[in-house]
């Protein structure tokens, strides 16, 4: 799943529900600054990073992220799929 863009407080449970509905194995890309950390929206209405509600495998920085940044993220996901797990980028807690 690619979470691209900001996630509002109202949308949070919906994103979580979509993640739960995904079949295993599943990987998540957090695309952009807003999905990764809340970005420029440091306020009451935006979830400060989608990794507070779902586990993220690859973060793509940028506002907006560059196309090659996203492609690199997809490549990293493919690497994780090949190597079974996080591929050494981040250890699952």
């Amino acid at each position, binding site marked *: 799943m690619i979470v691209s863009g900001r996630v509002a*407080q*109202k949308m949070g449970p919906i994103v979580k529900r979509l993640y739960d509905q995904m079949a295993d194995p599943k990987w998540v890309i957090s695309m952009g600054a807003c999905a990764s950390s809340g970005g420029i929206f440091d306020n009451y209405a935006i979830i*400060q990073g989608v*990794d507070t509600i779902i*586990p993220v495998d690859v973060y793509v920085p940028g506002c907006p992220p560059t196309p090659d940044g996203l492609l690199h993220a997809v490549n990293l996901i493919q690497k994780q799929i090949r190597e079974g797990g996080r591929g050494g980028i981040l250890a*699952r807690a």
Partner: protein
Amino acid sequence: MDGSAIDPTVLRPPIEDAAIERIAPAELRTRLQALREDGYMMLLDLGAVDYPQRVPRFDVVYHLLKMPVAAATPDQIGTPQRYRLLCGVPIENLSLPTITDLWRNADWAEREVFDLFGITFEGHPDLRRIQMPTHWEGHPLRKDYPLRGPAKERSPRPPFANKSNLVAGTPPSGRTAEALQQQVALRQAQDRKEEPKA
């Protein structure tokens, strides 16, 4: 502050294409009904403003539009007329009559005003929050609502979360309304001192 803040609506520049009128909540519905019968068939917008140092605290603003009659030829098309109605709502009585029976699009606009400011509309068919989650506490667009939301302890984080457990409320910064007023006064004093030189 001490209540001597200037009412910003007095200083606003005049808009040539709109008639601006200020009205009390008691006469609001009759006036809007009269305007609708006069030809202002379109409610453009409904919003509210929070002036925390003013009495009444909130201003609910209605924008109406009178569109010209359907033209037969292009040279008969006239310009639409706008009307702006301001209604002061005191914090002791945060309630206004609804106008959803006059204009159906006021439905969601009034829900938004209720959600973000806390002004209830009597007679509204479905007055509930529209932008914030249903059980949100507080009205975010009031000036005394912290920007980051109220500081609160979150539920225990799942092990994969990379964030700390405490949601930061708005930290104390220097940017309060009083500090802003002081800066404005300082700048005005500077301008007055520089005037004889200019």
